[in-house]
């Protein structure tokens, strides 16, 4: 990026040898205008290359096969991700455990007040999550819930923000959450055990579908619990990679 910037300012200073298509041809008369145009151009180039400013490294899923496929080697930070399907929570808790292993800051889970049985500490502990490092915030209405998730993402104080919105988000709401995640450099994960997509197209960096799979019971070894995971969409991933896994979990 710095190469592009240097090049453009160089051309701008040299008196307009450099041409810009949309502004028409010719030598710039006004230095101010020239500079403004140069800035706009820098912006345009930068936008192509811009990546969300991430505070931590990418959030690794902990499954080598999955991480190998993902463009960042994990879930991009400073963006929103979705986990759908009947095992969406299990996958989310699995990601939460990985996150708390690698980040010092606590995580936040937004739950509706109405869901009294929302989270059970001993169960989380069994998945390798230290429940003491999970802040739980309860909201009374859907609007308050969105406010809460947005604030938590924006604050940058949490290593991971989990939320379970009721139903699909509108484009505006999804966009706001996405911008908040970018501003705070925080990874957001929207969880829905219903099957339908939560976020509007283009606003989430990845969408996962996690379904339960029958456990593998062998006569001698321990029970191996399984998860069927499908990567439905992922920003920056276009190839024909494997997007379907059957994974052993805790």
């Amino acid at each position, binding site marked *: 990026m710095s190469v592009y910037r240097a090049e453009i300012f160089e051309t701008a200073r040299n008196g307009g040898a450099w041409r810009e298509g949309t502004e028409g041809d010719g030598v710039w008369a006004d230095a101010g205008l020239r500079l403004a145009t140069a800035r706009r151009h820098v912006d345009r180039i930068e936008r192509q290359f811009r990546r969300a400013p991430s505070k931590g490294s990418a959030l690794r899923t902990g499954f080598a096969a999955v991480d190998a496929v993902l463009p960042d080697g994990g879930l991009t930070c400073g963006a929103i991700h979705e986990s759908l399907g*009947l*095992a969406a*929570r*299990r996958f989310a*808790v699995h990601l939460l455990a990985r996150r708390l292993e690698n*980040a*010092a*800051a*606590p995580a936040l889970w937004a739950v509706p*007040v109405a869901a*009294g*049985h*929302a*989270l*059970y*500490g*001993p*169960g*989380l*502990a*069994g*998945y*390798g999550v*230290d*429940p*003491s*490092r*999970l*802040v*739980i*915030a*309860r*909201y*009374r209405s859907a609007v*308050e819930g969105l*406010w*809460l998730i947005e*604030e*938590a993402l924006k*604050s*940058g*104080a*949490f*290593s991971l923000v989990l939320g379970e919105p009721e139903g699909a988000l509108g484009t505006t709401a999804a966009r706001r959450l996405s911008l908040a995640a970018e501003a705070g450099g925080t990874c957001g994960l929207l969880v829905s055990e219903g099957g339908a997509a939560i976020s509007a197209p283009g606003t989430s960096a990845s969408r996962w579908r996690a*379904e*339960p*799979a*029958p*456990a593998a*019971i062998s006569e001698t070894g321990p*029970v191996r*619990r*399984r998860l*069927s995971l499908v990567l439905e969409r992922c920003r920056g991933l276009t190839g024909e990679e494997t997007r379907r896994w059957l994974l052993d979990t805790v």
Partner: protein
Amino acid sequence: MSGRRYLCLWLPFLPTDRLRPAAGEAPLSVPGATVQRVGNSAFLVALDRMARQRGLRSGMTLASAQAVCPDLTVLPHDPDGDRARLYELALWCDRFTPLVAVDGVDGLMLDTAGCDPLFETDTDSGEAVLIRQAREGLAALGFHASAALASTSGAAAALARYGGREEWHVAPDAKLSDVLSDLPVTALSAVEPGLDEDVFDGLVRVGLRRIGDLIGVPRAALAARFGLALASALDKALGQAPRPIAPRPIRPPYRVRLRFPDPIGDTPDIEAALRRLLDRLCRRLGDEGRGCRRLDWTLYRADRTEQSLTIGTARPARDPNRLFRLFAEKLKTVEPGYGVDSMLLAATGVEACTATQEDGIGAVTGYDRTALETAIDRLGNRLGADNVFRLAPVDSHLPDRAQTRTAVLPDKSAPWSKSGDRPLRLLNAPYPIEDLGGHSFRIFGRRTALRLLRGPERIAPEWWRKDAFWAGGARDYYDVEDETGRRFWIYSEAGNRPVRWYLHGLF
């Protein structure tokens, strides 16, 4: 020393007066005493008036005291509590003068110079009213007090304790040597607490019983024979040497007020006023190294109605910008009505707050604590403080008692046990499921074939606790899954026939 006036209030029964109202049932017509236990025996320490009249003395064993006086009320000896109460009474005395000091372990010294005109009435001089009000006020709080007002603090201290009267009012122009001459020499111990008992014994042995006897003796001889402390005590009592008092600094409540010449109503004006209030309050908190946990902001409207907004913080805070942001959420609820006349910002729950917390150096924890605190405060103020929490483990093997809620900050807690497979969600009330035979159950109205993964795990109720939820007795828990892999945590009550099944958790 002219112009100085000191009022000494002596509380001879401070320990018993302090404890008697709390002791409650004991009527004041019954003698009372505080008792200190040393090993196996107990000794009287402080006595009330009636106990003294009945012949009890400090240092008696409790057994012999109760032989003399079977109805004695026994109170615990607690010098720290006494001292704390004395400081509280010193604060109470702020109504008479800003300069109040604690005098010894049982007295208060008020510098009343210049304060007496405020109390003057048509019939009485200001000083007389002041003495009366101080004694009556303390009596209303349950404390008996002797008072002495004199031109030196030493004379006031000696007269209040050894004067033999409950009120002494020594006129400014009275000669102190005359007033004090009748007091016993032991009265000097009130002036100079360091004086030894031996000194007084020696004085009495040579026939010097009263202060008047000492005044005629040359100081140099006195000091040579009995030590410098005695001579200096005498000088201080007579006002020939200074005896300064150390008034407690008065800490006014943490409140700031702003009045407006004209009522204001525009949001920017109200914001600016709030900022000014916060700046003033936070500057004071910063000077004192303190922070507040709670702020109450009251707006007084022109039509004499008022509106209050309250914010709370997870840790003591004194950063005006941060506190302002917490109020900012609530600013839209402000209804100026006919305009706001004045505002009051009061900090409650003021606690010590060190600078490092403010700086937010997260080196110890590895993350930005300030950001976390700010975020928790913001969320808590909008959602309600009890809606932002962490889970903490409870030492119980019952699944429904294994966790509790705790505050997010401070972020230390007991470790969680990782043993046992527990579900991610525990239902508040177990959901009855129907056994259809052949490993099939009706769950949520649907026939589900289950496969056993783990179990049974027997969990018995805590026999020492009556728990309706566990009235069915011990349970056998099973970890099962259906053919698609959905996992359930189900149990049957071990003692009941026919066996009934319940769903208790979801993985």
